[in-house]
């Protein structure tokens, strides 16, 4: 086992390239800006991005099962609105949080029911629920800003410090770990992959594909609900249009991390690393004082470069390890012929 083959083996783990790019970016930002690599700064922006990690994790289930969920951003905003409203009405913390999560679950169930029972297009249905959830948030906030619950415990959902990090981050990490574990180890996770790889073969091997998809959308909705509660607790203020466009960050992050939009391929940690990449990029550009007008150009280019880099490193590593395998094979056949 020489070093080169070890390196190729590490490189052929999917997602390593994007992780590497992420680390390089963090290093670059911390050398070029004094305020980037400061614990407070990191804590702040990761906390800000915790809801995005949550919805990315939930969305990954839907995408791997072969679907898409565009409604998560708007549902996250609406859940933030409902939980904060109930908290402002003086409901206990746990009840307000539950109502936020229930809002997300409800939208997950609505998406899932329409898509699986009527077999209609997921893109359009979730686009419809995106509009509905966004509209309901506008109705709820009535064009004003919902400001401030006096419930300290509610704010503590995202703001308490545990081992030097905030609970918002802890919740996000826990959710990612649990969901990743379930996806890779549980039989349900296997069924999600099978459904995404091919509906028909999955169906023939006895998988209730509609049920699998239904559950995936409910998970995605539930994570949006949880994300909403965390965001509401973090900001302690909600206005119409909150979290609009989060779904695109989540989708772009997932694809950047190697999740295939045609289903059946990907994993949650990689999707979250992709989302982390995008969140960090935005934060870093702000700190470097880059002209905000060209943020989007840089983000767009970074997405393109990231995807190409990830694919080409993976393919290169595969090719090299394939060549090594061939060489070993040749060596063994030569040995056996002797």
């Amino acid at each position, binding site marked *: 086992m020489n070093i080169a083959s070890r390196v190729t083996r590490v490189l052929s783990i999917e997602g390593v390239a994007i992780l590497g790019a992420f680390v390089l970016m963090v290093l670059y930002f911390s050398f070029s800006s004094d305020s980037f690599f400061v614990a407070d700064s990191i804590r702040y922006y990761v906390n800000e991005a915790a809801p995005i990690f949550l919805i990315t994790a939930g969305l990954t289930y839907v995408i791997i099962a072969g679907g898409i969920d565009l409604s998560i951003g708007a549902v996250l905003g609406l859940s933030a609105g409902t939980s904060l409203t109930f908290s402002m009405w003086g409901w206990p913390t746990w009840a307000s949080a539950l109502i936020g999560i229930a809002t997300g679950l409800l939208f997950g169930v609505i998406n899932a029911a*329409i898509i699986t029972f*009527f*077999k*209609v*297009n997921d*893109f*359009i*249905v979730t*686009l*419809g*629920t*995106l*509009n*509905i*959830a*966004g*509209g*309901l948030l*506008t*109705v709820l906030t*009535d*064009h004003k800003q919902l400001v401030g619950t006096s419930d300290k415990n509610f704010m503590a959902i995202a703001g308490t410090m545990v081992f030097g990090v905030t609970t918002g981050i802890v919740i996000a990490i826990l959710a990612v770990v649990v969901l990743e574990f379930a996806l890779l180890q549980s039989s349900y996770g296997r069924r999600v992959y099978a459904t995404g790889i091919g509906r028909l073969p999955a169906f023939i091997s006895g998988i209730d594909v509609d049920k699998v998809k239904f559950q995936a959308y409910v998970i995605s909705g539930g994570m949006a609900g949880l994300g909403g509660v965390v965001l509401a607790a973090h900001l302690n203020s909600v206005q*119409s249009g909150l979290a609009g466009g989060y779904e*695109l960050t989540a*989708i*772009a992050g997932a*694809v*950047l991390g190697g999740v*295939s*939009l045609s289903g059946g391929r990907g994993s949650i940690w990689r999707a979250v690393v992709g989302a982390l990449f995008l969140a960090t990029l935005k934060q870093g550009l702000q700190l470097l004082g880059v*002209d905000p*007008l*060209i*943020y*989007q*150009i*840089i*983000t*767009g*280019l970074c*997405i*393109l470069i990231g*995807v*190409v880099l990830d*694919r080409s490193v993976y393919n290169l590593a595969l090719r090299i390890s394939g060549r090594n395998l061939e060489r070993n094979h040749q060596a063994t056949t030569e040995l056996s012929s002797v």
Partner: protein
Amino acid sequence: MSEFRSKVSIASTRNRALMDPSFGVVALLALVVIVMSIFQPSFKTSGNATNIINAMMTVSFLAIGMTVVLISGGIDLSVGSTMALTAGVAGKFISYGMNMYVAFIFALIVGALVGLVNGLLITKLAIPDFIATLAMLGIGQGIMLYWTQGVPILGYMSTPYYYIGGLRKILGPISIPMIVLVVVALVVSILLKKTNLGLYFYAVGSSSVSTRNAGVHVGRIKIWAYVISGLLAGIAGIHIAGRTTTIPPLIGNGYEISAIAAAVIGGASLLGGRGRVVGALIGALTLTLTRNIINIVGIASSWQAIVIGCVLIGAVLANRASEMFGKRISERTEKLNKRKVSA
């Protein structure tokens, strides 16, 4: 015998209508229009009809281009931002003193170039279409923001541009954009139905592997689809610049979603291989009519998004329902015919 045959043909025509991928939404639209005309006198005025048609132009151009891309099995999220960029090219170049028509040609070239870049990114670099066009959306928006420094573009309008934007009519209610739209719709229809390229679009969208095995250069076909979409975004950009008389840098935001929604309501499938130009127009009409009715009935602005969301879901459900209904009826007539033949 002849009576029997005519009955069969009527039945089969009826079935074919019901099986049509956008029959459900057309029926729904007809119903809504009838109800509105009865209860809202201001709805059936000719002025309002012209309003609706004018407002649906922009989305129609984009939806036709999107339909071509969807047929070939892709998706183009960049159309809104490309439209804004081409509008910016036309507006800026004219205000720099360039001849209007030369500026239009530049706008179309920029549109087609963006499409070409999309196509190359997707086919040569194997970037997923959703991500490549999403990145192009951001890049286009960014270029537009940086170029204009966030300030709306003004001062490019001239008398001929008022005609081209459809603000002045050439004959009765007929404006130049309407004629352009009809021509574009016809050309793209013929392209899709009568040419090899059109056939290949459907083939690539249905199964790119079998199309490649049949010896077709799949990558080139896909690139053409994105170039057509970009070119149509260019036409939409020239039109919207004339219609709004000022170009805010983010004028195209959200149009990509409207275009996809219109194409899918009109029966295009996001899985590829299905879609029609007429469908795209029906979809664009659905979206525009919804906005128009919201304004006329006076639904509070905060409820508008909810109504639009319900309409989107209702439209795909209506299509689905008519499809199921048509399938059931055709099965029944088939059974009846078999019984008749055996008798």
